[in-house]
């Protein structure tokens, strides 16, 4: 061992302070997930009242397709949040997190396909397309507190794979935002849901990664 390495080790040892070990991933993700569901539903409910008029319908919520969509959105959010934590922490078997990442994307594909059928319906007119901006506003704003919360959890550790960790963090938050929005949004046309409820999730996640990469490149 060279002298400089010995000096470094001696320096680092003299700076050592007791550290608080990060909680295991399982409890951590649950600490994020459960309050996030409640918070996003509350924020989306409030925003829906302000922007679009509250529209909660028991009949719509009990529809089988709606339940499947919501289950997929929620699973995607959970899987993406878990992946963000797993890939950002050192020492976790990456095979598992990669499988999980693919699983998340697979869930999304299934979700996408559940709404593709309505693209050809006459009600999918250009005018209705433009009504969806309130959905985007509500889901994005509902995702922000949830996103900040997962981001804080991810960056508590020594962060590995920063761009991918950010991608999955945003995916987790925006999926949760979209999940919350759907309870209050009266739109049932699949294509509109695809464009205004689902597509923004991907777009926002990708934009986040691109911004981070640009920032890292400029360093």
């Amino acid at each position, binding site marked *: *061992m*060279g002298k*400089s*390495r010995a000096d*470094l*080790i*001696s320096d*680092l*040892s*003299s*700076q*050592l*302070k*007791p*550290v*608080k*070990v*990060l909680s*295991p991933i399982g409890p951590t993700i649950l600490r994020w997930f459960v309050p996030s569901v409640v918070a996003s539903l509350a924020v989306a409910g409030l925003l829906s009242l302000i922007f679009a008029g509250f529209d909660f319908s028991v009949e719509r919520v009990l529809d089988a397709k709606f339940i499947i969509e919501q289950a997929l959105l929620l699973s995607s959010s959970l899987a993406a949040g878990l992946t963000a934590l797993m890939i950002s*922490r*050192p*020492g*976790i*078997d*990456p095979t598992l997190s990669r499988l999980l990442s693919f699983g998340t994307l697979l869930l999304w594909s299934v979700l996408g396909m559940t709404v593709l059928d309505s693209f050809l319906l006459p009600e999918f007119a250009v005018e209705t397309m433009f009504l969806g901006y309130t959905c985007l506003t509500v889901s994005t704003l509902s995702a922000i507190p949830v996103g900040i919360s997962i981001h804080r959890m991810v960056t508590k*550790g*020594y962060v*590995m794979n920063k761009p991918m960790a950010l991608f999955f963090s945003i995916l987790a938050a925006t999926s949760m935002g979209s999940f919350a929005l759907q309870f209050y949004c009266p739109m049932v046309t699949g294509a509109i849901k695809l464009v205004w409820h689902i597509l923004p999730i991907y777009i926002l996640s990708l934009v986040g990664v691109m911004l981070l990469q640009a920032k890292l490149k400029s360093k």
Partner: protein
Amino acid sequence: MSDKDTSRSELTQLIVKAQAGDSQAYMQMLERVGQLVERFMYKRLKASDLVEDLVQDVLLNIHKALHTYNSEYPVEPWVYAIARNRLNDHLRKIKKSVEIQVDADSIPEQAADAEIRALDLQALDRAMSKLSEDQRKIVTLLKFDGKSLKETATEMNMTVSAVKVAAHRGYKVIFKELEV
């Protein structure tokens, strides 16, 4: 229990003590981790100065990441993940510097960066074998024979731009093969 298992469990205990603030245990842990990382880096890079620099960087990162180790998991993947992260950052920097050189007209081909030379030569041979004949000749002329773009273009009977494009594509293949 084998010697390896004993050594692993000792290292785990040292890290747990270090997390609690035991600086003697921390010192021993860093020495052992330093040896692990040195072997890890030496397998991938052949230049000893570079290895030592990277080992020290990894030790600094381990200092920052000490709270992320969970004693329920094996210690080596944790150490190697941090080491690999640092190595990848380093290789990305080399790649970036090569790309900048290709983009600029004045590629100091003579230099054939010391760090590229430091990469595992066998891996480099394998990567070179994936290139087309022209790309291989161009990369060899530019990076190993120290020819300028103009000289390479003349020798290959190509334009300077065509040489730059072929070289750039060649580097991309090499970096992909080297998983940079």
